[in-house]
């Protein structure tokens, strides 16, 4: 058992990080906002933490704190001009933000450009990753009956009615984006330290699409569901390795099948509403 886990420790680390990303997207989706900027925030945090760790010798907690703060700042910066955008327009704006971030990462010399940043200290082990994941999940679950998360649900269900109940929709949206950015930032720094090599291409729209798939399959409004979705879909490519070049089709078919037949995802199995 231990040997099995040890042999697959890279995969297990990957699952943890993808789960964190899925949770970060879920926070925005729960507020009804298709804000696809989480991977960009992940990238910003990854670079911030890595540059600090390499140049100033930060340890992991400092790296995580710094990276997460940068990610949150970026999310806040994004949230302000997009405050009035809804639906598809918000999705497009956040995608654009992500692309600009990626292109800046390629061109700014401090990030090492398109060749990537190497020699990041490899000190994020499985314990750190899962510790963070469990902490994030616990925090979300603890708050899930509290006024903040209920406000998220209210804004998702009917924004006008929520406003009528006295909920400040703007603050809720801002909070959702920044909270999502924070979790994504944690994931980013952990990713950088776990893989000790990052490139701007790691944080592009392709990865964002993948995280969207995790969320849809796991359940767009459930933290645990999103984590499970991430786990399932991270394992899947390994499990169906024998299909070689046809593996993508399975992922796409799963996404399609779920959104058409099981729109609430895996979480639909246990969610009541």
């Amino acid at each position, binding site marked *: 058992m231990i040997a099995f886990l040890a042999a697959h420790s890279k995969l297990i680390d990957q699952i943890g990080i993808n789960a964190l990303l899925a949770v970060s997207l879920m926070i925005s989706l729960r507020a009804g906002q298709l804000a696809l900027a989480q991977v960009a925030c992940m990238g910003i945090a990854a670079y911030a933490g890595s540059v600090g760790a390499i140049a100033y010798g930060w340890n992991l907690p400092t790296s995580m704190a710094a990276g997460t703060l940068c990610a949150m700042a970026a999310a806040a910066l994004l949230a302000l001009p997009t405050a009035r955008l809804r639906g598809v327009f918000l999705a497009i*704006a956040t*995608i654009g933000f992500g692309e*600009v971030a990626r292109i800046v990462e390629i061109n700014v010399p401090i990030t090492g450009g398109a060749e990537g940043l190497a020699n990041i200290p490899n000190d994020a082990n499985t314990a750190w990753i899962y510790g963070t994941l469990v902490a994030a999940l616990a925090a979300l679950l603890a708050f899930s009956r509290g006024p903040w998360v209920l406000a998220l649900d209210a804004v998702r269900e009917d924004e006008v009615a929520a406003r009528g109940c006295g909920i400040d929709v703007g603050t809720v949206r801002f909070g959702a984006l920044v909270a999502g950015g924070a979790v994504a930032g944690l994931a980013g720094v952990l990713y950088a330290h776990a893989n000790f090599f990052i490139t701007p291409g790691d944080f592009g729209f392709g990865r964002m699409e993948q995280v969207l798939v995790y969320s849809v399959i796991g359940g767009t409004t459930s933290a645990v569901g999103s984590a499970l979705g991430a786990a399932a879909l991270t394992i899947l490519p390994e499990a169906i390795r024998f299909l070689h070049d046809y593996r993508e089709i399975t992922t796409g078919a799963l*996404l399609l099948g779920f959104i058409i037949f099981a729109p609430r995802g895996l979480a639909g199995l246990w969610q009541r509403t």
Partner: protein
Amino acid sequence: MANLAQQLINGITLGAVYALFAIGYTLVFGVLDILNLAHAAIFMAAAFAAFALFGFGVPLVAAGALAIVFGGLLGIALDRVAFAPLRARNAGTLAPLISSIGVGIIIQGVVRGTFGPDQHRFAIGSLSTAQLTFGPLSIGALDLIAIAVAIAFMLALNYVLMHTALGRSIRAVADDRIAAAILGVDLERTIALTFFIASALGAAAGILIGLQFGTVSLDMGSRIELKGLAIIVLGGMGSITGAVLGAFILGIAETLSVALVSSSYRDAIAFALMFAILVARPSGLFGKKSLRSA
């Protein structure tokens, strides 16, 4: 000065193909309020189809035409599989976006499985490399054909939309789907034909780009899909005139920025512009003024 004019020509060539792609995007959004993220996959699949047919000895024009029809049919299939079931249960606007991503992934997977992950070049010498020169300016024969084909398709589309019954139905569905249905428009047929047209145009764009660069690759779609998004935002989502104008503006801006400024931030211009438009004037240049809610 001549250099600037040359860059303008290059920009127009690029813009023409961008325009064909963007029209397909904006047509589907204008008629159905759906952002079809599988459009880029169809763009790529049609390019591969043309490449394959050409490789089997089918003459270039016929291969292109067949691939365009293939693209259109893929679009109809896309609608049947990904969007019609969601329409039937009134699933809103975000679910079709996600299901289009799913179909896009499937199409990419099929192409990868069939052709492998590598780039494919058209056989050396099989494509014309002739250049026409007008004084200090030059333009490739293929590029000229690309512009001509793109403009021809745009004019044809305009004719269909403005002067045929089908066009009237499409415009009616775009205006108000329920009212159109009440007035007797066959919704499913109109929507299917809209997808055929949009995807055929995207396919044409893919084939033209494949010919211009002489290669087809799996990531053709992803490179253009986000730019297409920027274009239709700039031009106004749902507006075909806007998409065409936006495409040419972007094509020229990109080529000029590479020539005058620097090439590394070229792509960022499109997205920065897009972001700025979304913040300042979400309806873009020609889009409908009202801010849609989700």
